[in-house]
């Protein structure tokens, strides 16, 4: 897996993180570390560009959840959180839109989209098909 980070010059501290390759038990910690660094240096809004991500396992979902928690400045969960992931995220989503206010997803491939749908992540993390709309949603 490779991660490409782009920090935007905008009023809000927004970064776009593109994940290339596979997000699984072997790689999800790398994503978390990268996002933790961004948060440490002031990023508060994140677009996760999934257009080049070819595979995501349940460990990858835990990675996504952890990223959401990190962007909120909260303690990440452990690997075995399972559906607890969803409970924690869903307790704190924006009451109006129903989506997390800090993290957005961009262009997941069909295989990844399926996983997001069947696990309920797509009910909580808003998915965009174009980058500008995703950035302007914050």
């Amino acid at each position: 897996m490779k991660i490409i980070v782009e920090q935007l010059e905008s009023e809000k501290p927004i970064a776009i993180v593109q994940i290339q390759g596979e997000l699984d038990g072997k790689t999800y910690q790398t994503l978390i570390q990268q996002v933790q660094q961004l948060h440490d240096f002031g990023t508060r809004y994140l677009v996760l560009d999934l257009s080049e991500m070819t595979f995501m396992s349940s460990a990858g979902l835990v990675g996504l959840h952890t990223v959401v928690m990190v962007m909120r400045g909260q303690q990440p969960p452990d690997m075995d959180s399972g559906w607890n992931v969803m409970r924690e995220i869903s307790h704190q989503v924006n009451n109006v839109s129903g989506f997390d206010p800090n993290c957005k997803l961009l262009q997941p491939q069909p295989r990844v989209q399926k996983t997001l749908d069947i696990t309920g992540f797509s009910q909580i993390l808003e998915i965009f098909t174009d980058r500008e709309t995703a950035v302007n949603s914050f």
Partner: protein
Amino acid sequence: MEQLHHLDQTITPDDVDTLRHQLEAAIVAVGGDPEAAADMILALNEALVNSVRHGYQGQPGWLRLEIWRDGRSLIVKQYDAAPPFDPTAVPPPDTTLPLALRPLGGMGIHMMRHFTDDLHYAQTTNGYNELTLVKHNAFT
């Protein structure tokens, strides 16, 4: 039923990604539909992780995988010698519940169920775990 491919090896958590790539390539090489192969690999990856991470606790352990064709169905059988564990006995989540009220645990098993058409567990006569994953309409 026709066996298309099999492997016996010692597996560690570091081997899971290589193994799933190998198996996906093997399924497609024998004429399996790429979409069905992709679904099978998503499910099988969770089964492999269960085996190495929970069954063998991250230690090297024996694994046998068999790929079968039965008519248009793709069947993958996974055997390991870890302590008995039946993932099909884990209750499915009630997906009609709001997310905040869903029970804990079992996301990987939920993916295994969703991405296969049938999922069976048995213990072999010599005490191995045997997990059978089935995907219908995987061959034309």
